[in-house]
């Protein structure tokens, strides 16, 4: 994994023009991000219902058709990006933050504390992600906040384990032992010497993890555990329109396509970055 590439190969990788798949993924991500930041640029009111125009197919006026309440599906998909992505991002931020903290603790403390924390990760990782999130929601109640925390906690071991493993390597590195010999304080040692050097793989990992978090969030809100109607969240939209699938495919297929496109784009770009940057250190 950590083999350093010969220099010319690395340069070739960096300079090679992006493949079409990656370019497409980048375009999708850019569009999605714009939808998150400025949804009204593309779309109108996602809650405006028109009961006289329900379940109408895609047309020039309604690009993605209308749903069971006569709301414009395109408007809802665009506004839904903010709901779905912000849940995914917030959950990933929690998971990464707590993961780094716990991973550092496990890697730097003595043997027994490391054992306790690491077995804790194992226990968390032993449950499927969705099950763990469901368990948390059962305890904390439904709603956007508990959905975010649930996914954050459930995906935390993913990052914590990597940070712990990196910490164990870095703490033995000559520059750390030298810093100890020079009498650096514990805080300075961790913040200045250990932390920056264990974070390398985290951004790429988080990017791939973000896709998973968005998918799980959509899945849980499909089950009615996330934002409540009439919020235009992608998973909730799928859930509400699935009863009409055989007469109005657009109301569920298009929000579903939005989830799929976003998650695939995140993963494609994440993997691409991973292949480019992995092993650049050391």
């Amino acid at each position, binding site marked *: 994994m950590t083999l350093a590439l010969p220099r010319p190969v690395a340069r070739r990788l960096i300079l090679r023009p992006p493949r079409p798949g990656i370019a497409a993924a980048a375009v999708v991500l850019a569009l999605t991000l714009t939808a998150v930041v400025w949804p009204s640029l593309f779309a109108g009111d996602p*809650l405006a219902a028109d009961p006289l125009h329900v379940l109408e197919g895609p047309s020039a006026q309604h690009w993605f058709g209308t749903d069971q309440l006569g709301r414009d599906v395109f408007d809802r998909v665009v506004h839904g990006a903010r709901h779905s992505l912000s849940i995914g991002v917030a959950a990933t931020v929690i998971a990464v933050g707590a993961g780094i903290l716990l991973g550092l603790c496990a890697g730097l403390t003595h043997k027994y504390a490391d054992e306790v924390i690491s077995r804790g990760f194992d226990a968390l990782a032993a449950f499927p992600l969705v099950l763990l999130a469901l368990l948390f929601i059962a305890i904390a109640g439904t709603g956007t906040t508990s959905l975010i925390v649930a996914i954050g906690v459930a995906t935390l071991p993913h990052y914590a384990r990597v940070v712990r493993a990196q910490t164990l390597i870095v703490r033995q590195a000559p520059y750390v032992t030298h810093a100890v010999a020079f009498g650096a304080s514990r805080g300075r040692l961790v913040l200045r010497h250990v932390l920056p050097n264990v974070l390398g793989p985290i951004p790429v990992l988080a990017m791939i993890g973000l896709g998973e978090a968005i998918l799980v969030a959509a899945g849980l809100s499909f089950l009615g555990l996330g934002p409540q109607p009439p919020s235009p969240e992608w998973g909730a939209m799928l859930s509400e329109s699935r009863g*009409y699938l*055989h*007469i109005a495919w657009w109301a569920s297929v298009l929000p579903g396509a939005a989830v799929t496109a976003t998650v695939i784009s995140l993963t494609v770009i994440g993997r691409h970055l991973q292949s480019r940057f992995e092993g650049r250190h050391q």
Partner: protein
Amino acid sequence: MRRTRPAAAVLALALALTAACSSGTTGAADAGQPVSGGSLTWAIETEPITFNPHQYAQAKARLLVWNSFEALLTHDAQGGYVPWLATGYEVSPDGKTYTFKLRTDVTFSDGTKFDAAAVKANVDQFQVEGYNPQVLAVQLRNLASVEVADASTVVFKLTQPDVLLLDFLSSPQGAQVSPKSLKEARNLKAGGPELAGTGPFILDRYTAGQEVHFTRNPAYNWAPATAGHSGPAYLDEVTYRFLKESSVRVGALTSGQVQVIEGVPATDEALITANKQLTLGRGLNSGSAFSYYFNTAHAPFDDIRVRRAFREAVDVDAVLTGVYRGSATRAWSVIGPTSPFYDKTLEKTYGGDAAEANRLLDEAGWSARDAEGFRTKDGKRLTVRLVQSAPFIRDRRDVLAQAVQAQVKQSAGIDLTVTVADQGTAAKALADGAYEVFENSRADTDAGAALSLLLTSTGSINRTGFKDAGLDRLLQDGQASTDQAKRLAAYQQVQKLVITDQALILPLYAPADQIAFGNTVGGVGFEPTAGVPGSAYNVWLSK
């Protein structure tokens, strides 16, 4: 109310649909003459919260009750009473004593004989505290005692005249359960296989969340005259599968996994009528209309202007067209349009005037708007809460609520929050008064029972919090008189008071049942008067 016998009604409907939908072709083949035997699977929308008929509360569970239980009386198509387990009854001239003669040839499926003592045991069971306070407070409010005159004669003594006694004795709550089961059942209120009845089928297996299974009662030979035939049921066994999702039910029917479904959503009706192998039937329910009741106990609905404004803010016709594709019958009163007490003069007297709604709200002081466009008063948003109880959601009432939510927001800036909760949570919200809108429809065969429960000051589901001595008196009059004209007069005044004068209620639609079945099935129909799907007694499978 003009309804022919169920089988004939379905046949007529099938013919009408055939004529309407498939001009020139033969259309739905009929299942021929009744044959005995076979095993039928029927997919239903609602899993009952109880199998004890005395605890019956879901109109969608009524078709299950009459498979294994029976009452003293039943209804004919004209809304009158006909004998079932009773052979007849007499009323004393003062209207306070009802003497019932009972059949002598009836036994419960556990071998216990059905007699006057059994009837007394059943009615006395309601006196047990907490058993069913709703029925005790309305239908049995004026019951003084039940006396056993001889083995086949039972006498009901009332403290004052009350016609709802007959409705009770023909309702699922008045169904007869074996006295042995009443004594010995470990979980009486939940019911199930351990409760024996006299019906044409015996409930022998219940798998929570999946299905309930009935087998034929071979000894059955006491069908009422209104039933299509006599003797044991045609089917050997019938299984009801609980399929909550309408698309799953329709899929199960079209793929042949089940032979009958109920709860066909309006959006799927075209799929059924286009399929020549399938037949669609529809019956309007009796009882109260599906309505939103406003909680007048606290702000904002303690102000009649806000109640009126909410009602004006909703364009009910547009909402129903959107959600039900024009197949729903709009309700204008708290009583459904099939009831003999329905007040037709209320039609088109209110609703759908957004300008008026906004004027009323401005006048009531809700004139400011917040960033999201909702009205506010003293910094507080005009929020009203509707809590839906999941086991009672049918006919896409959750989607309907969202449509109303969007309407009141767009037209008047009212924030209607809709929560779907499990039954316990919903009951708690109602008990704590943590709601402003309460939704309900009742399928009582006598709408008077529904009105007494919903509107009297002490009514156990009086969720409006509205208490008025005059209204109580009118409801009392309606319940006491045997004279249909007097009852009509009383109930028309009730409707005018609660709909026009007080604006306590936003009636939405008249509940209806849609059933669909394959062409191998015969005898599927609706229960006379109640308008809900009938039991499996008349149903047969041609192969």
